[in-house]
């Protein structure tokens, strides 16, 4: 059984068909990239998967369960973690406090009037683990809003990891990053994927990153599914080349 299955999902905004009958299956442990020219509907497709808004048509199944009508927060608690194009963090909190909130919410402690000694230690350990895994240990006491672009992105990914997700969705994780930051972020994603057998779907513009990371690639163009396959197949696909170069297929 696939971890994620999108069945012919569409999303219309008025007369604009942002996503048209796109289907997708992602297996456990897979690293999938979604690519496509600007305006291809990639982020809209992400929003459908994560419940930002409901699809006009089609179904979304996650872990063998129909989640089409579930709210975003319910999908998160079922194990979908997501990052955004612009890192969504708590800028006026330190990195550690950002993660603390994520850990407490993720472990169902958000309504506790009081954390006992044992639970408090558990929370602290979980934070330290995620800090170490994302290389943020030395920046734990810094305000998240004062970090570099790359570290803010890492903070966001760390918060999502603190939820112990089954599926990690990353929307352009290296967008706007300098060379070194891109390199670090790619290394981080690969490490997380390998260490935890985490299933990852990422939207990405940087083709070096895509071909470096992805097991399989899905190409969207003007809201439609254009192609899907192994990186070599996609690179050799004339329709994909045409879409990117703007020639008629």
């Amino acid at each position, binding site marked *: 059984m696939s971890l994620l299955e999108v069945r012919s999902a569409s999303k219309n905004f008025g007369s604009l068909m942002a996503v048209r009958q796109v289907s997708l299956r992602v297996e456990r442990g897979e690293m999938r990239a979604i690519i496509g020219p600007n305006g291809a509907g990639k982020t809209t497709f992400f929003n459908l998967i*994560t419940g930002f808004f409901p699809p006009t048509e089609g179904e979304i199944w996650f872990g063998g369960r129909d989640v089409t009508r579930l709210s*975003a*927060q*319910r999908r*998160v*608690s079922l194990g979908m*973690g*997501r990052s*955004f194009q612009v890192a*969504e*963090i*708590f*800028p*006026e*909190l*330190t990195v550690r*406090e950002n993660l*603390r*909130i*994520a850990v*407490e*919410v*993720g472990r169902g*402690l*958000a*309504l*506790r*009037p*009081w*954390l006992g000694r044992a639970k408090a230690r558990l929370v602290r350990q979980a934070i330290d683990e995620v800090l170490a895994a994302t290389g943020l240990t030395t920046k734990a006491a810094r*305000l998240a*809003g*004062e970090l570099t672009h790359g570290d803010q992105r890492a903070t*966001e990914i760390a*918060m*999502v990891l603190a*939820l112990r997700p089954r599926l990690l969705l990353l929307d352009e994780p290296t967008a706007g990053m300098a060379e070194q930051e891109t390199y670090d972020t790619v290394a981080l994603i690969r490490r997380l994927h390998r260490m935890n057998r985490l299933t990852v779907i990422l939207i990405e513009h940087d083709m070096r990153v895509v071909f470096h990371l992805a097991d399989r690639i899905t190409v969207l163009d003007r809201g439609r599914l254009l192609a899907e396959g192994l990186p070599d197949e996609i690179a050799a696909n004339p329709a994909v080349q045409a879409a990117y170069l703007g020639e008629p297929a």
Partner: protein
Amino acid sequence: MSTAIGERALDRLPVSRYKWPGTALLWLALLMVPLWVPWAGGYVELAGRALVLGLAAMGLNFLLGFTGVMSFGHAAYFGLGAYGAGLMLKYVTGSTLLALFTGTLLGGLAGTILGALIVRRRGVYFAMVTIAYGQIFFYIAYRWNSLTGGDDGLRGFARQPLGVGSWVINIQNNATLFYYFLLAVFAIATGAMAFRLCSPFGRTLIAILENERRARYLGLPVERHIWLAFSVSCFVCATAGALYALLNNFADPMTLHYSLSGEIVIMAVMGGMRTFWGPLLGAAVFVVLQDYISSITVNWMSFIGLLFVLVVLFFPRGLLGILGQRGAP
């Protein structure tokens, strides 16, 4: 409601390492009120009034300052608290504590039920609906002459002495003892709020204030948490309202009116809604100025309005925010 980068959001929580001297000083000042207030030209009832309205403003600020959700209708729950306490004393029982409890429950439960209906609204829509709720209760109290005394307000009840076994505390005629009764209730209510804010729950409120989208994508049921904050805030306002009725031995329909809601917001914002104690300071300034200026001119509200505008323009963090400004975080 985002603030400048570099300001630590968790600093608005009431408990932290460097805040305890200030908090201790505040409690000392509150405990010594009967000693220094007459000396400073005030009187103890005035301090009681500031304390009660301060509690209402702090209650409102539990919602406003910590989740960023604005209510312009908290007078409704304040007024329900006042009428609940007054009606209980007038028709049912001679127990001051039971009256306080009834008022708190009446306003708190009304807020909890109504809050559940509006937590999906945001910003100005939320504020408008809260005003509308408040006006419903205002007109009920205004019209239902036989029960509430209508326009004249609810009269004919008085707070009763507290009896502990054979030991009687006369809060009825002794202003100082009654002040300490108010202070005890104030301590319990603010203590409960502080405790709630310093828990994981309090941090989720700040998470919602800081970045609602991220809070949602951490799997946080944002509406439920805003609703709970709204509920806590209404319970505290209702307690304050019940105390207000005990203070005046009178429940006024204007305690339900949206103009009082506005005044509570002014107290919270003027005092500093980014802080836990700021609204108390705002209420104290408001009450003292009202008392002083209204003896000179009937247009006292213009002066408070002017002060409010000046504070918002030049000290957007409020009066306590000026004191709270530290160097680098």
